[in-house]
């Protein structure tokens, strides 16, 4: 049982933990975020390459799409901000790597934008200088042309100027040091030319040279910023960020997959355990059913055994009382049989010895007397013998003894035949079961059957028989009842003897038979239990305790009542009431 409780508790704990994890997990795992993010990253990449492309165009072609560049920069910033602080805020918060990558990209983006802005500023400046330079060149050219016509003298200045210009642009194109040297030579020549010339074009040329210098330095700055901007490789950073995000996402997916595996495992384990529980429960149930069946069977068996043993007990009670009854009757018959047997033997001896002798003597005397030639002397002698024998017999009292013995024997035989008659009446085997019966007959035959008990315990019977009608009953059962009551009364009086008075009278619808003894009596408790089966006051082995319970049953079968009144050391009264009219059930 403890094992099951622990298992269930463990399962519940695991379930709660997994539930908590799943709630946490479900807030982060969202495939749409990933798709959105991928799209956003792609867009960022597009924007980035567009910016790069535009930068190249701005640097090497004569386009001035500065507004587009600004717009692109704004777009990329806002897109990234959105990604950084809206879409992937939590992910970035959670993943340090992603955070680092985003930071890196953000920093570079800002750096690139600063470079770009500087590039654009310098380039605008460069373009203004370039225009100024072209204007100066044209002004100088026109001045030189006018002078030519006036002086008609070829001037080398214009040629120098042109050469300078060519070298300058070549230098600008390539920014190579040789070109720079050439250009520097040209510039030196121009400056020396001006110094020698007090012409009106001299300030212009000075301005031109200055502008050229300014252009060169500005161009260098433009180039520097362009290179800076281009070199700031936001694309790679973006790739790294994307990679990092992909890793993060994969990790998330893996974790989720792992979690799912755990969940599935948990589910399977739960299911398995539930199945085991169900099986156990089922088996237990089946077991229980079997146990109930077994128990029921056992109880049934026990009940049958009990019933059987109860029947056996009742039977053994019957046998015990029968045995006691038979023993008593055997003794009752044995006593007269003893003296009858002795008497008959004695009478026989008396007859075969004394009386035969007398008979023989008389016979001889008679024969002698009948003789014609009788001898008086012999006859007298024979008569003397007769007289002597007679005298002896008379003295011995043989005749009287014989009479006495035969009288006793007769009495004994009468006793025996009365006992046999009582036995016959008692069992009533030759009569129908229910009939109109004189209760006095039943009592009388019961007394006779119990006579041994009565004598043995020095009990005197007093009968107060009323004038009662015959009633319908089962005499053999009533006899058993009366015998039980009489036997109990005798046993109650065994220590000091006493009187058992039996009273019969008619009272209303009942016939009342009262047995009152002068025995030990009972206290109230014992009297109450008297009719309970197996209740006995006799020592173990001497009574089954069923006698009075059987008596009770017999009275109930006759629709009668049986009551007991008892006072310790005074005696007990058993009152039996039997209905006058109702036949027994």
């Amino acid at each position, binding site marked *: 049982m403890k094992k099951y409780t622990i298992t269930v508790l463990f399962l519940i704990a695991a379930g709660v933990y997994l539930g908590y994890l799943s709630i946490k997990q479900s807030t982060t795992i969202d495939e749409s975020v990933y798709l959105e993010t991928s799209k956003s990253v792609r867009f960022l990449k597009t924007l980035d390459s567009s910016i790069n492309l535009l930068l190249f165009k701005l640097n090497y072609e004569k386009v001035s799409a500065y507004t587009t560049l600004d717009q692109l920069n704004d777009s990329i910033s806002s897109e990234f901000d959105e990604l950084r602080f809206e879409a992937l805020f939590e992910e970035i918060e959670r993943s340090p790597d992603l955070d680092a990558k985003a930071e890196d990209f953000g920093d570079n983006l800002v750096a690139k934008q600063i470079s770009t802005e500087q590039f654009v500023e310098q380039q605008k400046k460069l373009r203004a200088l370039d225009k100024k330079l072209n204007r100066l060149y044209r002004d100088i050219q026109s001045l030189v042309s006018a002078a030519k016509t006036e002086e008609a003298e070829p001037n080398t200045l214009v040629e120098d100027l042109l050469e300078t210009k060519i070298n300058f642009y070549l230098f600008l194109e390539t920014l190579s040091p040789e070109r720079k040297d050439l250009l520097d030579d040209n510039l030196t020549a121009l400056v020396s030319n001006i110094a020698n010339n007090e012409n009106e074009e001299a300030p212009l040329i000075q301005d031109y040279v200055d502008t050229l210098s300014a252009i060169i330095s500005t161009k260098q700055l433009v180039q520097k910023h362009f290179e800076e901007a281009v070199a700031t490789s936001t694309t790679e950073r973006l790739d790294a960020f994307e990679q990092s995000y992909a890793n993060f996402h994969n990790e998330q997916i893996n974790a989720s997959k792992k979690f799912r595996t755990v969940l599935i495992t948990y589910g399977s384990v739960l299911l398995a355990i539930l199945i085991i529980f169900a099986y156990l429960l089922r088996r237990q149930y089946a077991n229980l059913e079997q146990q109930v069946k077994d128990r029921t069977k056992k109880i049934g068996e026990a009940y049958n055994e009990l019933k059987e043993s109860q029947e056996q007990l009742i039977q053994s009670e019957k046998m015990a009382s029968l045995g006691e009854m038979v*023993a008593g009757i*055997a*003794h009752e018959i*044995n*006593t*007269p*049989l*003893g*003296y*009858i*047997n*002795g*008497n008959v*033997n*004695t009478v026989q*001896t008396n007859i075969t010895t004394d009386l035969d002798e007398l008979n023989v003597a008389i016979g001889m005397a008679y024969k002698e007397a009948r003789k014609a030639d009788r001898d008086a002397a012999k006859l007298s002698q024979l008569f003397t013998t007769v007289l002597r024998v007679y005298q002896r017999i008379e003295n*011995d009292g043989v005749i009287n*003894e014989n009479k*006495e*013995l035969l009288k*006793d024997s007769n*009495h*004994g035989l009468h006793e025996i035949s009365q006992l046999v008659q009582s036995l016959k009446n008692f069992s009533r085997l030759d009569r129908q079961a229910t009939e109109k019966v004189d209760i006095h007959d039943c009592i009388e035959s019961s007394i006779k059957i119990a006579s041994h008990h009565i*004598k*043995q*315990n*020095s009990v005197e019977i007093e009968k107060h028989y009323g004038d009662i009608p015959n009633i319908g009953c089962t005499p053999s059962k009533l006899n058993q009842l009366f015998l039980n009551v009489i036997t109990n009364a005798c046993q109650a009086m065994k220590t000091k*003897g006493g009187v058992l008075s039996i009273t019969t009278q008619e009272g209303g619808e009942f016939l009342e038979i009262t047995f009152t003894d002068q025995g030990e009596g009972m206290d109230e408790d014992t009297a109450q239990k008297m009719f309970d089966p197996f209740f006995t006051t006799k020592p173990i082995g001497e009574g089954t305790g069923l006698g009075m319970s059987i008596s009770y049953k017999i009275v109930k079968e006759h629709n009668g009542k049986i009551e007991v009144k008892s006072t310790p050391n005074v005696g007990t009264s058993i009152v039996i009431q039997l209905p006058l009219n109702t036949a027994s059930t």
Partner: protein
Amino acid sequence: MSDTTKYNVLFVDDEQRILTSLRSIFRREYNVFTALGGKEALEILANNTINVIVSDQRMPNMLGNELLAQVHKLYPQTMRLLLTGFMDKQAIIQTINEGEIYRFINKPWSNESIQAVIKEAAEASQIDIGFSPQQAPTPANQNSATIEGAGDQAKAPLPQPQKKAISDHATLIMGSSQSLRNQIRQVCKQEAIAVYSTQSIRQAVNAIVARPSIGVLVIELLSDTDEVIHTISLLKQKRPELITVVLADETDAEVAVSLINSGQVFRYLSKPLELLQLQKIIKAGFERHSAIKNNINSQVRFKVQKPTNKITAGLKELFTSFGLLKKQT
């Protein structure tokens, strides 16, 4: 009325007709006394020397065995017989052990056999019992005697001659129960009595024939009751001074009657016994043994009748081989 040349016989029964019948049988050869109860009988015994008393068992107020136990105590010379209608086990066993009776007579009796038994008893009653009634075990003085005796023995070793005299005695045990043998050994050791232990009738008979010192025979009755009764009967015929104590798991009324009538057993008891009880019995047994031995005539008082059951062939052969039974021609 009383004729001094005739034996005095007392019949006790609560049924007058039984007394009449018995009187008519015996009045010629005996002075017949009758009593209707134990109390009356004791009065007659007090005023007359009664040779034989025959009492019924079932009587109101005083039972036959109670009366005979009293008679045994007060008038040991009087031969005691019990008339019994049907078996009342407890009474019969008590009559043996407390009344030391001569015979049980079954009701209804045959005149011839009762006459024969009473004749034997009457003749035996003339012979001095050889021991005074005071020596006979009565519950009161027996106890004190035993305690005194035991005390003496505990205090000092027995004087040499007495010890020698006692060592002539031997007890024979026949039976298989280890605990009983140990008990008897213990008792006999205290009393300086030799003990022989046997397991079968053959061994027992052999030992008794070979050793005249055996005075008391303790038999554990297990099975073959008939054989044991025959054995006791034959041994008692040949050695009337042999005292027999029979022990059984459960005493039986019919066996008890046979043991008395055919074996004159001294005691018939149910196991287990207490050591003290056993000691008393064995001591009393040897006293009786010595008394009979010293007064050879008193043997008549313990005459046995032939067992009613037929002797088995094996047993007959056994006894013949020991010369206890004559060869039948």
